[in-house]
């Protein structure tokens, strides 16, 4: 092993340790790691930035801007209140509807954004029903991770995988999307046995839900109409982006630009609302992993993986799926996927058909996030909010429900991948 390889590995491991242990803010760790690679001469500025996946950053920025404008219309509150009234305040149908809304939204938006959009309404409605919101939060946490697995843009790992592997929105829908349908159905059935049968609400509390007026949730009717039209166009754009010969980031950024233009919102506010720390984190992370690629460490790891599995595709799929799931249950899946991607690309350049491996990574890394309280950002955020409002979700209480459900979802994914690709 050369000295530059050792330096790249050490910087990578120290950066990952800082991110995983949260000793440093993850953005600081990633940017510091990237700069260390440049300062030590492992990468030049040009070569470092050549590893930054602009398509991923573009999708993230575009969708953040788009949602920030659309949110001001009140459309998400409108949908939530409408769903609550359709459920007539009955807790189990309400739980299912909110989980489905969360899953669908999460297929197009970042998971944390989704839970922050649906969460306030969940808290408001459960307080009106005078029931504990924890079961609702738990189901929404899991639904957000499951829904995000279904599409190209639903979860950052999928954006990264799609970008690196040249996979389209339709490719994801016909692969992970299909698996997610089965996973979501099975998970909802499990939710019924875990929570649904025990939910009970007084009739007068249910009546209070029917008194809600979804029209009062609309803050800007004109913006609402524009938002609905643009959402439909965005979905169309993503579904057909490969036929249109447009990158997914082009669709996202165009949608953002149009909404900024026609939305007539305070642009300074909207742009300030983008999570720039997340964007910087991704930038730094791409460069840190790029250090491993540049020095040939990824090639060594890829060779090691191929030697371990002796080219046996089924074994490789299962190994990647389950290792991704278990690792993602306890650690941030983004650095893990960022490291796996060049490894799989290296295997591809050796002549291996890696198509099933992309789906294994996607399903494992995204669904694995449901395993523990710290498995995904949405879990941490919504449980933190629940704690602040007096409804604690502990690591143990989450683990008892989340980990078995995660195992069920990955088992379903195993069956799906084996039937589809072997």
């Amino acid at each position: 092993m050369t000295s530059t390889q050792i330096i790249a590995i050490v910087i990578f491991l120290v950066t990952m340790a800082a991110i995983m242990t949260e000793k440093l803010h993850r953005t600081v760790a990633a940017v510091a790691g990237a700069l260390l690679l440049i300062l030590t001469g492992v990468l030049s500025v040009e070569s470092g930035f050549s590893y930054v996946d602009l398509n991923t950053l573009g999708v993230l920025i575009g969708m953040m801007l788009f949602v920030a404008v659309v949110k001001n219309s009140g459309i998400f509150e409108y949908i939530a209140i409408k769903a609550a009234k359709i459920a007539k305040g009955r807790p189990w149908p309400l739980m299912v509807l909110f989980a489905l809304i969360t899953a669908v939204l999460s297929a197009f938006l970042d998971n944390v954004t989704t839970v922050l959009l649906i969460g306030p309404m969940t808290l408001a409605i459960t307080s009106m029903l005078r029931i504990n919101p924890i079961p609702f939060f738990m189901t929404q946490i899991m639904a957000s991770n499951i829904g995000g697995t279904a599409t190209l843009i639903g979860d950052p790992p999928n954006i990264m995988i799609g970008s690196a592997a040249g996979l389209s929105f339709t490719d994801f829908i016909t692969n992970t999307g299909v698996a997610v349908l089965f996973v979501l159905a099975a998970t909802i059935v499990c939710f019924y046995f875990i929570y649904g049968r025990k939910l009970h609400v007084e009739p007068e509390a249910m009546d209070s839900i029917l008194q809600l007026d979804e029209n009062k949730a609309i803050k800007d009717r004109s913006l609402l109409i524009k938002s609905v039209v643009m959402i439909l166009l965005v979905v169309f754009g993503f579904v057909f982006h490969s036929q249109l010969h447009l990158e997914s980031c082009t669709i996202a950024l165009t949608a953002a630009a149009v909404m900024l233009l026609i939305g007539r919102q305070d642009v300074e506010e909207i742009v300030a609302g983008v999570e720039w720390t997340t964007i910087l984190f991704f930038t730094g992370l791409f460069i840190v992993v790029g250090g491993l690629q540049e020095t040939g460490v990824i090639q060594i790891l890829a060779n090691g993986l191929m030697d371990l599995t002796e080219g046996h595709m089924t074994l490789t799929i299962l190994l990647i799926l389950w290792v991704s799931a278990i690792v993602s249950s306890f650690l941030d899946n983004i650095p893990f996927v960022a490291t796996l991607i060049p490894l799989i690309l290296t295997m591809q350049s050796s002549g291996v058909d890696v198509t099933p491996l992309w789906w294994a990574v996607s399903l494992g890394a995204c669904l694995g996030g449901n395993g523990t309280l710290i498995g995904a950002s949405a879990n941490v955020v919504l449980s933190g909010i629940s704690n602040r409002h007096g409804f604690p979700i502990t690591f143990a209480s989450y683990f008892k429900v989340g980990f078995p459900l995660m195992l069920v979802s990955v088992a379903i994914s195993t069956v799906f991948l084996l039937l589809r690709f072997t």
Partner: protein
Amino acid sequence: MSLSTFSGDFIDTALSQLGASRIKVVSGKQHVVDFDLGEGLTLTYIFTITNENRCYLQRARPYPMVQGRLASTEEVLQFIARDRQAFQNARRSRNYSTFLDTARKTLALTHKMEELFITHNLSPEDLALLHQQGDRLTALMDEIRARSPEVSCEE
């Protein structure tokens, strides 16, 4: 979006159901909420939710009143709901405009006193005189309270 926007969104949702006519969010943290109670009466509340989920509330219209730091988002909602109901009740009174004038004069008095203290070197006798007048006003208000029938602020 963040934890503080969650709490703010939760409050905004409840306030919109309560009848808020306008809700404006500034920098994701400061919320300006208007209730149009009709006949020219608009209540405006400003609340701020920090990243640490601390809540600060004040009323800006019809006359300013700083409520300060509240313990929770629920307290913000409860205060605004009660205050709005109190003003709705008060608006029905034939003495309402007199009450508004009195409240604004009281506020002006507070500002005048502050300006007096800051820009002048008052003698202890003058300070004691002002203090006595304050005590007399408080005692008068207690007398009036004792002989006036109470009004419920429940909806």
